[in-house]
C-alpha cells in the first residue's frame, strides 16, 4: 500500500507526534496509513533472554508490564513519557521511526543491545538501534518499509540501569536526558553504556565516560570524570528550554544521578527513578 501511495504517504502509529506536527503544517502528507487497526502489532513477549515489543505497543502497556519491568530502565522511559493521555496512545515503534532528537526511547535503547526488526516490500531485515537512527527525524527505513518489532536483550545479572530526564512540565519534551546501564561486579564496574538525549541530533553515546568507568571502582573521582566526559560529549543548542551551557551542566548532573540509581539497581535494590521537573 505504501509503495502504491508513494513518497507522500505517512504511517500513523500512536499519532502523538505526527498529528501535532501536521497541525503545525510541519508534516503535510497526502495520505495517512493508520496502523492502529492492524492486529497482532501490540505485544510484549519474553523469548530466550530477549524482550520483544510489537511496534504498536503503547508506552502505557510497557509502563504497566511486569515482563518489561525486568529491564528497569525501560520502565523509567515508558512511565516518564509526557502524560497519561500520550502514553495511552503513543507507541515504541512510532517513537523510534519518528526519530525526534528529543524523543525518549532512542536514548534509552542506545544503552542496550537492541535489534529493530523492519518489514517492507523487499522482505524482513534486522538493524541495530544505533544503525537505525541516522539523523534528526531520519531513520534507516526505506520507502515502503516499517518497524515491526523492537527486540531488547535482557542485560546480564549484576546489571542495572536508569533513565532520567529534566523537564519543565510533563507534556513537553525534556530539556536534556541521560540513560545509564552498568554491569557491576562487587564495587567494580565491568561494563558501562551511557547515552544522552536532547543534546544532539541523535542520542549521543559517551564513549569517554564508559572507558573511564570500565574496570574501575566507581569512586567520586571516576564519577566526576564520567560527568566531565558527558558535558564534553554533549552538543546542545541554545533554545527556549535553556542555553547550551546550561544543558551541558545539566547532562553532567543527570549522568551522576543516573549512575547512582543504576549502581543500586545492579545490587538488586528496588529504586524508583523519577524524572526531575523544573
Amino acid at each position: 500500500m505504501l509503495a502504491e501511495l508513494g513518497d507522500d504517504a505517512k504511517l500513523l502509529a500512536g499519532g502523538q507526534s505526527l498529528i501535532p506536527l501536521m497541525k503545525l503544517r510541519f508534516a503535510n502528507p497526502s495520505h495517512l496509513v493508520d496502523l492502529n487497526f492492524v492486529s497482532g502489532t501490540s505485544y510484549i513477549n519474553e523469548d530466550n533472554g530477549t524482550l520483544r515489543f510489537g511496534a504498536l505497543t503503547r508506552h502505557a502497556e510497557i509502563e504497566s508490564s511486569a515482563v518489561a519491568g525486568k529491564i528497569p530502565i525501560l520502565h523509567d522511559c515508558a512511565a516518564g513519557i509526557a502524560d497519561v493521555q500520550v502514553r495511552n496512545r503513543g507507541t515504541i515503534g512510532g517513537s523510534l521511526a519518528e526519530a525526534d532528537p528529543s524523543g525518549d526511547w532512542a536514548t534509552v535503547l542506545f544503552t542496550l543491545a537492541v535489534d529493530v526488526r523492519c518489514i517492507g516490500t523487499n522482505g524482513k531485515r534486522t538493524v541495530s538501534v544505533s544503525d537505525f537512527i541516522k539523523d534528526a527525524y531520519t531513520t534507516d527505513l526505506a520507502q515502503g518499509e516499517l518497524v515491526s518489532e523492537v527486540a531488547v536483550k535482557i542485560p546480564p545479572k549484576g546489571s542495572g540501569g536508569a533513565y532520567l530526564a529534566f523537564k519543565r512540565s510533563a507534556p513537553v519534551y525534556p530539556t536534556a536526558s541521560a540513560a545509564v546501564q552498568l554491569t557491576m561486579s562487587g564495587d567494580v564496574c565491568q561494563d558501562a553504556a551511557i547515552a544522552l538525549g536532547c543534546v544532539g541530533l541523535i542520542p549521543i553515546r559517551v564513549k569517554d565516560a564508559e572507558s573511564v568507568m570500565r574496570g574501575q571502582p566507581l569512586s567520586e573521582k571516576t564519577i566526576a570524570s564520567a560527568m566531565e566526559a558527558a558535558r564534553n560529549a554533549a552538543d546542545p543548542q541554545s533554545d527556549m528550554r535553556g542555553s547550551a551551557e546550561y544543558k551541558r551542566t545539566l547532562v553532567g548532573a543527570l549522568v551522576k544521578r543516573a549512575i547512582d540509581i543504576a549502581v543500586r539497581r545492579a545490587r538488586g535494590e528496588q529504586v524508583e527513578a523519577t524524572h526531575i521537573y523544573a
Partner: protein
Amino acid sequence: MPDNVENISINFKVNGKPYSRSVEPRKLLVELLREDLDLTGTHVGCDTSYCGACTVLMNGAAVKSCTMFALQADGADILTVEGLERNGELHPIQKAFGDCYGLQCGYCTPGLMLAALQLLSQNKKPNEKEMRKAIAGNTCRCTGYQNILKAIQVAGQNMKGA
C-alpha cells in the same frame, strides 16, 4: 491534500449511545464530539496536545481527543463529561469537584475529571504522587491544583460504595 477525499463511515458509542457517522478523514475526534454531536463539554484549549482540556475516555483510557482522528474511534466506546451524570444525579467526581472548590473558571474541569476517572477506576485511594502523575497532562491556570487533588481524593472515597 488530494482533491476528492471520500468520507469514511464509522460506528462508535458515546456515553453509552451508539452512533453511525460518515466523517472526513482529517476530522479530529474533538471536532466530531463538539460539532457533529453537539457535545460541547469537551473543550479545545491549546490544540497542540499540551493542555488536556480535550481529554475523554476511550475504552476506559484517557486520550486527548484533539490528537486523534475521529475515524480512529471506529468501534470505540467514548465517555465525555456529559456521560458522567446518571438520572439527574451528579457523578461522585463532579460532586467532589464542586464540594472541594476544585474549579474556578471551569475550562479545564471536564478534562481533569476524566483524567482523574481513569486513575480512580484503577485505584480508589491514590496518594498525592499518584494523583499528580495522573493529572500531569492537564493544565489548570486558576486553582493551583490543591483543591483538585482534594476533590480526586474525596471522589475516590465516595465512589467506593458506587
